């Protein structure tokens, strides 16, 4: 039997209260925020110092010195730049719980500045195609430019960063208009410029929704393409005989898991220290917890699929690859990754009490983030440590598997500095753009009604087309 629920005038009053509340919270900057920003800035500067020392000491011609650098680049690409997908995908399926989380996820697109910056030296580290290594560009002298991987890589990283920034801007337009209309000082000036005369006409709302859909799809395509290019040109060719058709997809879908974990940790911080506990509640943690469980299962499925083919096939190049990346010098790191990225999330998140809590999923997300960092280190450091003079078409004898490369001071400084830089730019972004999507919260108050259903209370959720 169809029932009709009414959204009354009092709910409209509540929407205005929500708007003012969020705008005011956005303009307030606490001491904890300032202290954290200072610490992160120091770490970022130390990271830059580490990078300068690395490049002046070792130059860009020694691959094995840049393994950790490439690993942290891939880590930010996988985690922070995967986070906007947590806004895009639930928006496509019209999940209402995403409304409190979508801006927090989209703001991670700002880390595109960091990845673009960090990517530049890698262009110089990667040799040209004339070394004869296997490549998608089927290099023949004179027919294909020997630096084509560099160009395509740079283009894709920049395009992905731009797509994320555009998506962030488009989705923020109505909120920037609220700030323009309710704030003063530099915030008002900044919002006035970037709100682009937003008035809230039907046409403007239609275009925002339409553009968010297109930009979201484009961002996803760029994410997949960028991961593909990074893997196909900046990772796998370093290991002669590493032919894994699935790995670009694995690397890209790891970004979904990394993105979910990043957003979960962000939401926890927002709840605990940002004072947003009335917006970030059980629904958001539960929805993201389920996504984290699903993406953990995806990780094991893809990893096992690759492993099984190599293990069963026992071709020399496959044995070399397995030894290098899994069972040889990085065995303990691989075990740690397996435990942190799969075992811990799976065996905890299958329990309802863990999934249905506000602390469980963020805690598990921390494990996943650490595991993802270890995973990127395992892959990139190992690949970059293969001798540059190895026969590029493989297979290499097993006794030539290089020993594990341990991080030096420069690597540690760079790793911490890059991660600090990504977090810093996110935090600074939250001062410019509200971290909770105000217009989506207002929209929720239109489409969510609590009412009596005979002898019980139910929640009614509208599903507009």
């Amino acid at each position: 039997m169809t029932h009709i629920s009414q959204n009354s005038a009092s709910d409209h009053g509540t929407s205005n209260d929500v708007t003012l509340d969020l705008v005011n919270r956005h303009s307030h900057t606490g001491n904890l925020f300032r202290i954290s920003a200072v610490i992160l800035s120091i770490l970022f500067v130390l990271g830059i110092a580490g990078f300068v020392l690395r490049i002046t000491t070792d130059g860009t011609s020694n691959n094995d010195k840049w393994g950790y650098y490439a690993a942290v680049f891939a880590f930010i690409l996988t985690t922070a730049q995967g986070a906007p997908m947590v806004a895009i995908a639930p928006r496509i399926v019209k999940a209402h719980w995403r409304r409190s989380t979508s801006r927090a996820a989209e703001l991670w697109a700002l880390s595109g500045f960091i990845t673009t910056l960090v990517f530049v030296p890698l262009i110089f580290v990667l040799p040209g195609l004339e070394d004869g290594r296997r490549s998608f560009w089927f290099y023949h002298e004179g027919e294909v430019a020997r630096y084509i991987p560099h160009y395509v890589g740079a283009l894709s990283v920049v395009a992905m960063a731009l797509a994320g920034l555009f998506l962030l801007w488009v989705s923020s337009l109505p909120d920037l208009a609220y700030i323009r209309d309710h704030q003063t000082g530099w915030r008002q000036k900044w919002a006035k410029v970037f709100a682009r005369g937003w008035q809230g006409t039907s046409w403007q709302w239609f275009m925002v929704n339409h553009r968010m859909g297109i930009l979201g799809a484009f961002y996803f395509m760029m994410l997949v393409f960028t991961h593909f290019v990074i893997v196909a040109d900046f990772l796998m060719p370093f290991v002669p005989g590493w032919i894994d058709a699935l790995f670009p997809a694995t690397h890209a879908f790891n970004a979904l898991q990394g993105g979910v974990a990043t957003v979960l940790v962000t939401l926890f911080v927002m709840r605990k220290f940002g004072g947003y506990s009335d917006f970030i509640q059980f629904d958001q943690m539960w929805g993201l917890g389920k996504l984290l469980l699903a993406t953990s299962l995806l990780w094991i499925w893809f990893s096992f699929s690759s492993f099984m083919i190599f293990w069963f096939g026992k071709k020399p190049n496959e044995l070399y690859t397995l030894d290098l990346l899994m069972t040889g010098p990085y065995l303990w790191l691989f075990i740690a990754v397996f435990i942190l990225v799969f075992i811990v999330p799976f065996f905890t998140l299958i329990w309802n009490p863990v999934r249905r809590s506000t602390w469980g999923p963020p805690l598990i997300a921390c494990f996943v983030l650490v595991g993802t960092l270890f995973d990127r280190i395992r892959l990139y450091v190992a690949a970059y440590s293969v001798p540059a003079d190895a026969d590029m078409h493989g297979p290499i004898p097993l006794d030539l598997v290089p020993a594990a490369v341990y991080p030096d001071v420069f690597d540690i400084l760079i790793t911490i500095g890059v991660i600090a830089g990504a977090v810093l730019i996110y935090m600074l972004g939250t001062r410019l753009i509200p971290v909770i999507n105000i217009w989506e919260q207002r929209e929720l108050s239109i489409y969510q009604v609590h009412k009596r259903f005979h002898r019980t209370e139910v929640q009614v959720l509208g599903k507009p087309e």
Partner: protein
Amino acid sequence: MQEYIEHGPKKINRDLLAGVLGLPRWWMPIASVALLVILIAMCAYGWELNRGIGVAGINRPVYWGFYLANFVFWIGISHAGIMVSAILRLTQAEWRRPVTRAAEVLTLFSLLAALSNIFFHLGRPWRFLWIPPYDFARGVWPNVRSPFIWDPSAIGTYLIGSSLFVFIALIPDLAVIRDRVSGKTAKRVYGFLSLGWRGTPRQWKLQTVAGILLSALVLPVFVSVHSIVSWDFAVNVSVEGWHSTIFAPYFIIGAIHSGVSAVAMVMALMVWGWKLENYITRDHFDAIGRLLIVVATTWFFFFALEFFYAIYTLEDPEIALRTMQVFEWPYGPMFFVFIVASYFIPVPLWLLKNVRRSPMGMFLTTISVNIGMWLERFLIIIPGLARKTPFTFDWGTYHPSIVEISLVCFTFAFVTLGVLVFSKFFPLVPIFDVKEGEVFRDEIKVGRRTVPASIRE
């Protein structure tokens, strides 16, 4: 769902039990044709059993032909049920309600059809008994390291899991039939099958939890089944074009592509055959069409990855195989038809709302998909085997015999007859699910507009 027609429980019972309590006029002729095809195919199989596997077209070096391609095809179709039913149940998509049971039943019969191909292929089917781990004086145990042992464990688990999944969800509807049929025997049988279901809040709560829990349990099985089937090919190093890590997800996404297309076909047939246009509306076709765009594009991405990485190896035999697959007779034209029929015809059409919302449009485009996907499986298996060895004198060709063609037709007839017979005894649209949709449906008035809504507990 923007289109909505409220029915009421009595009308729902009447409409959805029409096929069970009565018989559409077309049912007997179509079932008879299916039965005739099955009988002819069984004669062909009898001939094969009598004369040996040599009456089939398979021979050195193409040891796997129509039977295996058809096996993989039906395993793919069988993924439809769980995809539509389990994933949409877990994501609480309202549009799944009228289609879940048909999808699950398609799964069951597709799995059985797939298994039948293995029996046909075995030549000496009693050797199937070598798979279970018993050793009564044979002195041989099954080789756990072989994908041919992984296969039965996965398919067996999936078959049992899907059957139980269908049965549990069927119990409330069996109670409805128990209360509606007039014959004493029929009442007893349905009463027995419904296990005494009464419809208490406890039973309904457990039914809801069961749906979610079983969906969550069957989904990993669904992923593992076709991964393991793909590893029948991918773990093999001696056949060009097979040894690729991407086979597992590639096969899964291909299975989802063909399976969901098959569900869309069945939806159209249900609308036409049982006059269910009030239950399976244009909105449902639109929703499945949008899902298919995403699935098809993802499938194409994996196909492109698989193809490019084959060339990436820069191994001459691999490249020669791909050249043969794409450019040489007879595989070249098949490749063209496959790629066009699987993606380049249906997907651009699905981008058009009119096509997505039309049962005929969806029916024709999904037939195209399944023709393409059958050819895909053929093109994965046969060309690689035809060029298996490095010596050209050992190269071969493959021509399917009339026996193989008959037995492939058997599988289509079997699935058709199976679904028809099922529809005669059990409702194809879950009655309680549709009724639940009505209870949980709501609307929100926003100014002059009424927005459809649903109740969440």
